[in-house]
């Protein structure tokens, strides 16, 4: 089989312009021919053209399209323009393609780039404003749903709540405990190094106690839960949204706030303080272990010093923050899930947003608590 590469000849004899394509005119062989053919089309505008198909071995839609494009380019050609020598299949292909020559719209047109930047900036600001409003309205809806359920306790979804308590709380305990233990140890090492320079090794107990109880225990738990459960909430609710399950719930008279959001919020609000408590305990244990091994502070000394100097307020100052963090993480996770629309890409974006926003808000709230505690001398 002598399949020759695609090429074309131009025959000007006998007055008419004649294009003679030869060889295998299929897409994969036409890449280099495209520009030449376009040039030829531009040169031959307004003239009669005959395309002789008798030397084409093989033809597919792309080849047919390129020839039809040449035939129909820009201005109209005279009456004598035609295809000759095409066999039946080629004629059918050429006819099939003829009606479908059109410019391609790959993406929506982009305007002036400067305007686009300004546009994006404005849109970003407006979006942030509306998103803040929507989150607040979501908080309101959650609270009013909670109020309604409080009045009618039989509407409470206990199974779902307990499931999420297990999933988000119980299953997270090992990793949170381990993390907090290590952080407690790290803080103690830091203290050991620096405080020993002032012969103040014993203050390691205060350092570990106060930092772990007030901040690290609860903050680490919140951060881990935001990454672990906040994102899971978004992904779960978001994929339900994509498959129209949320819509199905609405038309069946099931309130998604009641069925999906409230159990998750309640589960986290209950579990995060417990996780924070465990984190605080293990953080202190980690610190104590380092104090005993790397310094000469025996566990007995550590405990008695701890009891003398660390007042219970430090513990409460940390723990009080936990339900607030939990509420924010659950709300943002569920809210972003509800905002998912259409595509899998949107699900990914919303999951990322959910983690970033809840981490940001957790830190902001923590800062507010710090200022507040300072003012009231807590």
């Amino acid at each position, binding site marked *: *089989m002598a*399949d020759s590469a695609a090429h074309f000849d131009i025959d000007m004899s006998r007055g008419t312009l004649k294009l003679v394509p030869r060889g295998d005119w*299929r*897409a*994969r062989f*036409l*890449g280099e021919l*495209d*520009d030449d053919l376009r040039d030829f089309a531009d040169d031959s505008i307004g003239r009669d053209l005959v395309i002789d198909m008798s030397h084409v*071995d*093989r033809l*597919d*839609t*792309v080849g047919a*399209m*390129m020839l039809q*494009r040449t035939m129909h380019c820009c201005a109209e050609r005279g009456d004598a323009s035609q295809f000759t020598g095409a066999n039946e*299949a080629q004629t*059918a*292909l050429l*006819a*099939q*393609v003829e*009606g*479908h*020559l*059109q*410019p*391609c*719209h*790959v*993406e*929506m047109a982009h305007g002036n780039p400067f305007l686009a930047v300004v546009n994006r900036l404005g849109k970003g600001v407006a979006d942030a404003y509306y998103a803040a409003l929507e989150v607040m309205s979501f908080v309101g809806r959650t609270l009013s749903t909670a109020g309604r359920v409080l009045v009618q306790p039989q509407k409470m979804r206990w199974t779902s709540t307990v499931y999420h308590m297990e999933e988000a709380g119980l299953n997270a305990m090992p990793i949170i405990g381990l993390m907090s233990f290590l952080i407690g140890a790290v803080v103690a090492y830091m203290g050991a190094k620096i405080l020993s320079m002032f012969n103040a090794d014993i203050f390691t107990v205060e350092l570990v106690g106060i930092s772990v109880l007030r901040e690290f225990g609860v903050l680490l738990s919140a951060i881990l839960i935001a990454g672990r459960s906040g994102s899971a909430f978004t992904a779960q609710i978001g994929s339900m949204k994509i498959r129209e399950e949320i819509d199905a719930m609405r038309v069946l008279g099931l309130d998604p706030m009641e069925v999906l959001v409230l159990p998750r919020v309640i589960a986290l609000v209950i579990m995060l303080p417990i996780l924070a408590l465990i984190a605080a305990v293990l953080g202190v244990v980690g610190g104590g272990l380092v104090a005993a091994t790397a310094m000469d502070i025996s566990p007995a000394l550590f405990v008695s010093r701890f009891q003398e100097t660390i007042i219970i307020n430090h513990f409460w100052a940390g723990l009080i923050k936990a339900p607030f963090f939990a509420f924010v993480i659950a709300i943002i996770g569920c809210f972003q899930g509800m905002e998912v*629309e*259409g*595509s*899998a*890409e949107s699900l990914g974006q919303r999951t990322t947003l959910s983690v970033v926003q809840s981490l940001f808000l957790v830190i902001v709230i923590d800062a507010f608590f710090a200022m507040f505690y300072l003012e009231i001398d807590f």
Partner: protein
Amino acid sequence: MTDQTKAYDHVIEVKGLKTQFGDFVVHENLDLNVRSGEIIGVVGGSGTGKSVLMRAIIGLKRPSAGTVRIFGEDYYKADDKAREAIEQRWGVLFQGGALFSSLTVAQNVMAPIREHLNLSEELAKDIAALKISMSGLPEDAGAKYPSELSGGMKKRAGLARSLALDPEIVFLDEPTAGLDPIGAAKFDELIVNLKESLGLTVFMVTHDLDTLHATCDRVAVLAEKRVIACGPLDEVRKTDHAWIQEYFSGPRGRAALAVKAS
């Protein structure tokens, strides 16, 4: 043409196919041949494994026994290169269109062109526009994202993508399911039209009796884990089998036949 010296009798040749999920056997000892240039419709009750058969042929569900030959080549025994060559000669329309949701329709159609053909961006765009238009989509559909399209338009866009590389075989999984009767009839017309002008072989899984009447050269009926009848519609209809009789002689079957006769 190179392919005139064909080393095969049938473009698709399924022999002794057995597929199973765990212990659940879907097909056993199933034979099916598809001739070049025909439209074959695969019908069967729900759960008889029509879609699984299609997936076994296009390499998405490895059979536990039997062979699948495509263009004379044993797909599951072929090396990577031969397999890739086969894959470039077929196009698949999945039930929901299976468009890439992060790309526009035109970018979806251009994806296989960019991957497999070394063409200029401009020519790739022209090709995408051609396929989109040939699939019966309006001109501005190319710039839209799949989530902005109706179900029927998604199917057309999926068809445009499956035609991107000028395949020789097109697999259609329930092409008219979920379309309104007018849209479905137009889709039937489109498939016949494309088959005639492009010389396609079409392997179609369908429930739609009207589509069977309007498009298919041959019909294969799946039941009892194998193909129980295969041939032109009029012959298959006469087969003495309970399911076939119920299928073609039920109220819908008769209605579709009446439409054809008129």
